[in-house]
């Protein structure tokens, strides 16, 4: 069985994001990391591989710097590494999904794991979109997955609450925060990772014709400054504060 895991390199969630000239300044990002939900996907992909055998292929789509996370994945046990080299500006969601779907097809994977959304764009379209293109069953908001016979059992949050579901191949699991954190590598893994080749592919290699993006980025901007702190007298002010939390702060 071939297992594919989709990984994205993003600015570390602790990194400061600065905007200059209408664009997020990537050069100012102090640290790039594997997107946190993808780490859960990778951990469970490793567990599936250890449980049922098979080959684990780590796939990323992004600029040259992104190959770092593939090496990180190799250090914890990914068997092969695929880098779709592409500068993702100028691609819309379908471009990215088509590229990833083609790469998955090429590996022959019948089960795909990914994060429910990336920590940069916060979209959550890639996993389900790729599943749809490939005709795979999509299970989102997953916190655990294991093999059972020829298929899988997963824990997920559904609109009606937590559920244990079973699915058969081919399928895709998009991970929410999961029960087990991604394992730490060890020196042996790191030294092996150094020797592992990254297969670099262009859209042409994958037979994907890149149509022009149908969504054009107009600008990035810094979020509105928070208003200065406000102080209210007495418990009678609670409704005011709650409505501000909802309408001004948008946090509830």
């Amino acid at each position: 069985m071939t297992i594919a895991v989709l990984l994205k390199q993003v600015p570390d969630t602790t990194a400061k994001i600065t905007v200059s000239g209408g664009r997020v300044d990537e050069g100012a990002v102090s640290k790039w990391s594997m997107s946190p939900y993808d780490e859960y996907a990778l951990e469970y992909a490793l567990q599936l591989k250890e449980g049922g055998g098979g080959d684990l292929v780590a796939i990323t789509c992004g600029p040259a710097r992104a190959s770092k996370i593939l090496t990180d994945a190799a250090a914890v046990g990914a068997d092969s590494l695929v880098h779709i080299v592409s500068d993702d500006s100028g691609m819309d969601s379908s471009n990215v999904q088509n590229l990833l779907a083609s790469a998955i097809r090429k590996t022959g994977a019948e089960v795909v794991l990914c994060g429910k959304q990336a920590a940069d764009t916060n979209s959550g379209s890639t996993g389900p979109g790729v599943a749809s293109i490939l005709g795979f069953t999509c299970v989102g908001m997953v916190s655990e997955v294991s093999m059972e016979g020829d298929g899988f059992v997963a824990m997920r949050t559904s609109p009606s609450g937590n559920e244990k579901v079973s699915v058969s191949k081919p399928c895709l699991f998009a991970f929410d925060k999961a029960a087990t954190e991604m394992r730490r590598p060890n020196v042996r893994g790191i030294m092996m990772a150094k020797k592992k080749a990254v297969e670099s592919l262009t859209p042409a290699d994958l037979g994907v014709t890149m149509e022009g993006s149908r969504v054009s980025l107009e600008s990035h901007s810094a979020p509105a400054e928070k208003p200065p702190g406000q102080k209210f007298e007495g418990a009678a002010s609670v409704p005011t504060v709650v409505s501000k939390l909802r309408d001004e702060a948008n946090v509830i």
Partner: protein
Amino acid sequence: MPYDALDFYDVDSLLTEEERMVRDMVRDFVDNEVLPKIEQACRDGVFPDEWRVELGNMGVLGAPLKGYGCPGLSYTAYGVICRELERGDSGLRSFASVQGSLAMYPIWDFGSEEQKNYYLPKMASGEWIGCFGLTEPDYGSNPGDMITRAEDMGDHYLLNGAKMWITNGTIAQVAVVWAKLDGVIRGFIVEDGDEGFTAPEMKGKHSLKASVTSELVFQDCKIPKDRILPGVKGLRGPFSCLNNARYGISWGAIGAAQACFDSAKEYSLSRIQFDHPIASYQLVQNKLSWMLREITKAQLLAYHLSQKKDAGTWIPEHISLAKMNNVDIALEIARAARDIHGANGILDEYPVMRHMANLESVKTYEGTHDIHNLILGRHITGIQAFTRTLE
């Protein structure tokens, strides 16, 4: 706040990708498994056993040694590991230094093939803990005059004497002990359980509280013949171990200094006095910029030394200078950081006083600050100043 490792000159960009991955692995271990437990470990005066297990799992013990189940990393990587561990605590780094440089290294360099095959894999995996017995109650800076003796009894050696200030002693399965056999210093491997060998723990330390420090006592201790290290005679044996450990310390001290700087910076930015953060006052900025200056210099020193170590172009005096300087500035930085934290600095809510107290030990062990000055003095002048009897 996540740890922001001060690296003003981006010295880490000189590391290989592999070295950076090792750094990130150890840093993650320190963040998630050391820092949440360190203060309690210090209060309890214990070295948490799960740290031993995880150091073994990560595969960092005996980092620069090759073969026999050892990691085979560069000395640079070993330095980086020490730095990241000591950012957590000097006691943790001491554990790793002693295991790798003082216990595994002599077996690796001076041991027989059988000894290497028997001991090293178990020590690299962390299954067995090692310690190193050189210093005695009355012979610290002057180990050449040690009292501990070994006697050849035909089918075994008989060991008599005592060692002191031995990191890991009580919890170790393996002790590399230096003793005089017919007046010549030799290395012996003593195992936990050997007849006549005890390792009582030394209590009441104000420093390195999360590290085990012991005495090693040998009273007619019987050692099988095959436990002598065949490959070395004289002080060269223990000194080659110490060179490696001191090298690691020159990196480790930077980690402690970075932790203190990070805490002092955070604190000074959030502590309001006279209506403003204390970081906005010139006296505080002066301290912070001095810390930045010294840490940056120490990083460059350690990095360049690591290149010489890996290239084999180093001399022991290079290591003396780095150990002496980097520990010295780390201790001064810890003191200044404690000062910036005001009264809060004495609480174990902040790491600064713990690092400060630890570094007092680090300044003294593995060649005191003054002894390293004398080593450099001898190097400059050609005149040794350790004794009054000039040669």
